[in-house]
């Protein structure tokens, strides 16, 4: 449904917001777009909606190019930008009516029906007569969500849909988003990890405009579930410690982290249960001091932190 092909976006010669991004979203799936602030999530979403054109590469939505067939794409897309696009002069009801007209719903009756429907599904029925200036952040966000789905679009792009909501509203919004999947194709950006785990079928993790991982949340967790993350602190000669660790056949990945004088930290991944004992023994046998040894099992959080902070460290 959505094909992002080798897309880059430069804001200036030096500033690359998005760097050669490629991914696709099949029809009916909910894709979570995960990354720290400033990773390029908003820029990518703006390019998918046609608000911005890519500097390089192309994007297709439902088979239509977002630049050359922009009008066709826009008919199929509902979009909640980073800031809900509300007009202070229009009450929620007349605002939704305006958006519905803008999206091409011609019959007044149909518009009325759709406003009632989205008012119910986004829980904004009690503020329809109010102007957005008097609304709380949570309500503004939900009105923004309502305008994104008012014309029942095939593709829905949501930039941080649960930001500013209270925990109960977050839960309800996730339910709403999950309910939209299936008939609709969704992309939502977030930096809240449980959100992705709960609502999304697929995850794309990006940082500094580049894709670090793309998979289902379950696979991403499984990828690290059997893998033990071990953190080691050893006092001794750094290069010899590294050689020793890398020589262990059961260690899949050994990353050097930092040094404080001759105290060195390493991050190790291994599938072998109980590898800690073996590691400890071989380090002590070399007459080095084993200062710390910690283990942690994998979660999406770990993968995320690991991917984002250790970019380039993992091979």
């Amino acid at each position, binding site marked *: 449904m959505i094909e992002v092909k080798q897309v880059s976006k430069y*804001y200036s010669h030096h500033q690359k917001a998005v760097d050669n991004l490629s991914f696709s979203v099949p029809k009916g799936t909910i894709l979570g777009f995960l990354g720290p602030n400033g990773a390029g999530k908003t820029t990518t979403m*703006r390019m998918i*909606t*046609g*608000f*911005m*054109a890519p500097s390089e590469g192309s994007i297709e939505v439902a088979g239509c190019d977002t630049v050359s067939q922009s*009008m066709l794409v*826009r*008919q199929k*897309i509902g*979009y909640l*930008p*980073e*800031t809900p*696009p*509300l*007009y*202070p*002069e*229009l009450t929620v009801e*007349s605002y939704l009516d*305006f*958006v519905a*007209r*803008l*999206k*091409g719903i*011609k019959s007044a009756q149909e518009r009325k029906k759709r406003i009632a429907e989205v008012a119910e599904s986004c829980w904004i029925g009690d503020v329809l007569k109010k102007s957005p200036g008097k609304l709380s952040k949570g309500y503004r966000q939900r009105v923004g969500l309502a*305008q994104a789905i008012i014309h029942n679009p095939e593709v829905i792009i949501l930039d941080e849909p649960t930001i500013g909501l209270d925990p109960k509203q977050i839960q309800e919004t996730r339910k709403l988003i999950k309910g939209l999947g299936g008939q609709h194709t969704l992309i939502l950006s977030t930096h809240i990890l449980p959100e992705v785990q709960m609502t999304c079928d697929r995850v794309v993790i990006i940082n500094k405009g580049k894709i670090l991982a793309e998979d289902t949340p379950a696979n991403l967790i499984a990828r690290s579930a059997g893998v033990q993350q071990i953190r080691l602190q050893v006092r001794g000669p750094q290069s010899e410690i590294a050689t020793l660790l890398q020589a262990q056949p059961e260690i899949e990945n050994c990353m050097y982290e930092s040094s404080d004088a001759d105290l060195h930290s390493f991050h190790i991944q291994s599938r072998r249960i109980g590898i800690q004992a073996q590691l400890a023994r071989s380090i002590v046998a070399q007459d080095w001091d084993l200062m710390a040894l910690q283990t942690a099992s994998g979660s999406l959080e770990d993968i995320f932190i690991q991917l984002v902070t250790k970019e380039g460290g993992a091979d």
Partner: protein
Amino acid sequence: MAQIWAISLKELKAYFASPIAYVVTAMFLLISGYFFAMILAYGKDAGMMRYLFGNMSVILLLITPLFSMRLFAEEQKNKTLELLMTSPISDAGIVLGKFLATALLLLIMLLTTAHFPILLLVLGKPDLMPILTGYLGMFLMGCAFLAIGMLTSTWTQNQIVAAVSSFSISLLLWFLGASGSLAGAELGALMTYVSLNTHFESFSKGVLNSSDLIYYFSVIGILLFVTVRSLETRRWR
């Protein structure tokens, strides 16, 4: 088409929901009412409406930027431009919808002065033609000011900056004709032709020249086109 009208309707709602439309119209009425009274007091010759139109067009030059300044600057500040530019309406449609709304507002404002000629008709026998063409001329010139203002409004999210730039450009185009005589024959003629003021004179005299009509339509058309282009470049930034 329905979408263009949706934009116009929304703009008109916004004008009348805020004090802008009322305050500006009231000021316009007050100042032009003052001039009308002064002209009535001084002389009752055939050209009296001509003076009034001349004065009113200066007032228009001063106050139309107040109508046009918010058109795109506010959308940028509120981050609502993202909604418009990702909706199934072309950039030209957005520009046209907004222009239609302000032009309509200008028309409403001009119509609030309709009691001036009605008073004249009740009290005497004025020439109708110069009055009608005078109003048409003011409307067209006002539309040109609004188009300039809408263009400057796409450049910034600061409404004051948009208004000041629009006012300066309009004023320069207005005075261009006056300095035409200093600039040599060919350039001077060109400057006089381009000036917004030159083409208004025939309207206020009751003469409907097709060349003057074409001038205003072209100026407005070119400005709207440049506005669309200015909006389009945002996608490539």
